[in-house]
């Protein structure tokens, strides 16, 4: 045996955060998605900078430069990098400001929905019995309400606004995570360590917050990440239908709606393509990242690739 092989390699105990990070880094798709999301956030934060750089405001109409003599919007050129819309507004600047709305709505709605879902799901799963039955039926009820009809009715009563759209999105998206958390909690509540805490005299709230909640962190992270793109699409849908963000505030769904409204997209493809790409790219990125996180955070799914070069034999002889 050679000396090098005999010398035992040092065993590195890696923390779970470290392991998760390493696994995430090994997955090019999630890495790309994470980079895209970071870029998107920078894009949204830097929206005023884009406005200053191009010299165009998000809602001002540049009828002299943005529209052709016949009144049609100009395509992408050196002044309007992504073209101008039918009112002569800069599409690039509007997409940047729209990203702010989309991200804000997406993240806020996802966080609020997961907070409600986790609270209700944990209560139902931990206590069981009639509480579980009541909360479970409540979730069924919410799931069976038609989303668009309800949104239409609410908007016609209260009028469209940013807050109303967030509320509608939250109301319709907490049930998914609620069910997942309910099932997880129900199985965790039967585990020995919960029994051990109970036998030490811990109260229900203490068990739920200290023993069960930390063990739910993985599904909470995954489902919240997955809920962000859904909320973004929800918001875009609402805006597309004129029920969300009030014009002239830019939003991706609203931009698509305006492009479609008077068939202007037939002559100005950039009005559909760029907001559409932004929407597609961000939802895809969040979904891929959510998937990647699920794989990386799952201790059971440790995929280990076979090494490419064959191992050296352990012994000679």
């Amino acid at each position, binding site marked *: *045996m050679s000396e090098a092989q*005999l*010398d*035992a*390699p*040092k*065993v*590195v*105990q*890696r923390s*779970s955060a470290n*392991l998760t990070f*390493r*696994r995430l880094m090994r997955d090019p798709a999630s890495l790309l998605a994470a980079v895209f999301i970071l870029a998107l956030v920078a894009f949204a934060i830097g929206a005023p900078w884009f406005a200053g750089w191009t010299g165009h405001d998000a809602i001002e109409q540049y009828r002299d430069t943005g529209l052709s003599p016949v009144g049609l919007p100009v395509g992408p050129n050196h002044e309007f990098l992504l073209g101008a819309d039918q009112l002569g507004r800069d599409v690039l600047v509007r997409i940047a400001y729209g990203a702010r709305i989309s991200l804000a709505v997406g993240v806020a709605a996802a966080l609020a929905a997961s907070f409600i879902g986790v609270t209700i799901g944990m209560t139902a799963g931990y206590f069981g019995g009639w509480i579980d039955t009541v909360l479970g039926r409540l979730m069924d009820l919410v799931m069976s309400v038609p989303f668009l009809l309800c949104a239409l009715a609410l908007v016609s009563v209260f009028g469209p606004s940013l807050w109303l759209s967030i509320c509608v999105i939250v109301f319709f998206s907490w049930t998914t995570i609620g069910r997942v958390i309910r099932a997880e909690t129900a199985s965790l509540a039967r*585990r*020995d*360590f919960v*029994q*051990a*805490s*109970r*036998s*030490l*005299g*811990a*109260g229900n709230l*203490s068990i739920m917050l*200290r*023993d069960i909640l*930390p*063990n739910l*962190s993985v599904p909470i992270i995954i489902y919240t990440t997955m809920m962000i793109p859904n909320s973004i699409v929800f918001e875009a849908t609402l805006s597309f239908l004129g029920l969300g963000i009030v014009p002239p505030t830019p939003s991706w769904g609203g931009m698509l709606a305006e492009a479609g409204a008077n068939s202007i997209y037939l002559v100005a493809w950039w009005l559909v393509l760029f907001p559409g790409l932004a929407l597609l790219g961000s939802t895809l990125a969040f979904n891929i990242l959510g998937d990647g996180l699920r794989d990386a955070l799952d201790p059971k799914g*440790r995929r*280990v*690739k*076979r*090494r490419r070069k*064959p*191992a050296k*034999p*352990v*012994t000679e*002889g």
Partner: protein
Amino acid sequence: MPLLEARNISIRIPTEDGILHAARNVSFTVEAGSLFGIAGESGSGKSVLTQAIMGLLPGVEIEGECLFEGRDLLKMTPAELRALRGARIGMVFQDPLSSLHPYYTIGRQITEVIHAHEKVSNTEARARAAEMLEKVGIKDAAARLDDYPHQFSGGMRQRVMIAMALVLRPSLIIADEPTTALDVTVQAQIVALLDEMRRELGITVIMITHDLGLMASVADKVMIMYGGTRLEIGPAKGLFAAPAHPYTFGLLRASPAAARQGTELYSIPGRPPSLLARPKACIFAPRCAQVQPICQIEAPPNRAYACGTEALCHFEARIDRADTAPAQPARKPPTDRLLSVQDVALTYTMSSGFGAKRQLDVLKGITLEVARGETLGLVGESGCGKSTLARVIAGLVPATRGKVDFDGIDVGALTPKAWRDMRRRVQLVFQDPFGSLNPRRRVGAIIGEPFRIHGLAKGEARKNEVRRLMELVGLNPEHYNRFPSEFSGGQRQRIGIARALALNPDLVIFDEPVSALDVSIQAQILNLMQELQQKLGLTYLFISHDLSVVRHMCDRIAVMNAGRIIEMDATEQIFQHPQQDYTRTLLDASHVPPVPVQAQPRELLRLEQGAA
């Protein structure tokens, strides 16, 4: 010619943490018609070895050669191996509950094996399946072919698994911990069945188990594995009577059966090695009682003795009578009564939708008393209600009828506040060291939890208390900030004990505290429990299915069966003069590993260097 001959098998499994050396240079031969045993602690590579040979572990790197009926299994294509598995080599797995498909009838599952390898009509296949089921002891087999797995008990299911493995009359059966998931009485039947099948049908059996007692009762030849290395191999009789390797010797000595009641058990210090880091020298050296300077430096040679035993060691194992722990002074006789349970019954009512309510009696009138300072053992098979009784006594589950009286307090009639105070006096230690600790909390927080809940010690004071407890149970107090996953099974059980002792309880209920641990670790924990009992004057209620452990630990034993205590007496009385048939069955079914003795000087045939 041997049926199976493995030469220098090395297995490496690439994982995220590095390469796992699951086996290194393991060689063995299995003679046709014999029962070959592979024994070792968990993580010793015994299951991986057989599964890798059978081609059941894709993705591992395996070297060496393994001749089965003259052909090298490791050079076969997956298709050839598939044809071999089931037809020539049958396999029986540990858990009969999960290795049968719940959606198909057992008849269909057995005939599927036949159809996969032979072209026969369905009628003929069914006839053969029924015949084999009859052989493995399933009555009225032809009628039961159309039953589903859930209609059989655990032992019956394992019989079905054996029938499935045998139905094509293979020449070799590999049984991987075939009895571990079963009750003691059923274990004995299954092992007897395997032995009988081997004699009747001339089948060779490779049995993998961690249970040395079981192994000693049936095996012809035994291989002892440790950390992926073959430490000793030889004929079972000689090996168990006079082991040539210090590890085998230590394992046998560590069994509670080898020590007198009340004395300290011999234990192997330390913990099993990590398979990631292979030491250059002897893998067992860090834990070896007979370690010499050379063991830490040089790889040990393989010593082959004239009696057929081969051991991987620099020396021959010696028996030092001197290191046997002196018998401790007899415990003072128990005085006053601490716990009294009177006619406790527990009935679950199951409402099934619209149907009539069904009642399930888990406990049917239990009466027992525990004196302060004594250890009462509660013995019974799974499902007899012993764990439920523990929870009723601890006050976690209310009894339907009867009274639990703890030091003058009626446990069933406590106010919530009194119930919380009661928690400080009765504590539970759970069976599963992996499930009973919250994986997301640090050890310091887990052990400090009782102080937090009861508002007893804060900040630095709590930290000091936790350190003191960690010291008390033999953990390094510097590991305060670690997560449970960074500890081994035995260390986790120590954490569980530390948590239970935090509030100075009077009564500690141990629910199968060592059944998930390996023998060498088990001895350490049992010693710790005895030491703590003497130091702190604790009263123990000890629940177990392992009779030798109970015999070693307990002053009195209560035997439970189907929700009743059928016999309760002093330990030796139960073991020497059992009154009930059931107790006798239990006693007969338990296999105790033989106590090793010093052999006459052996004749050394040869020394093989570089065998590790």
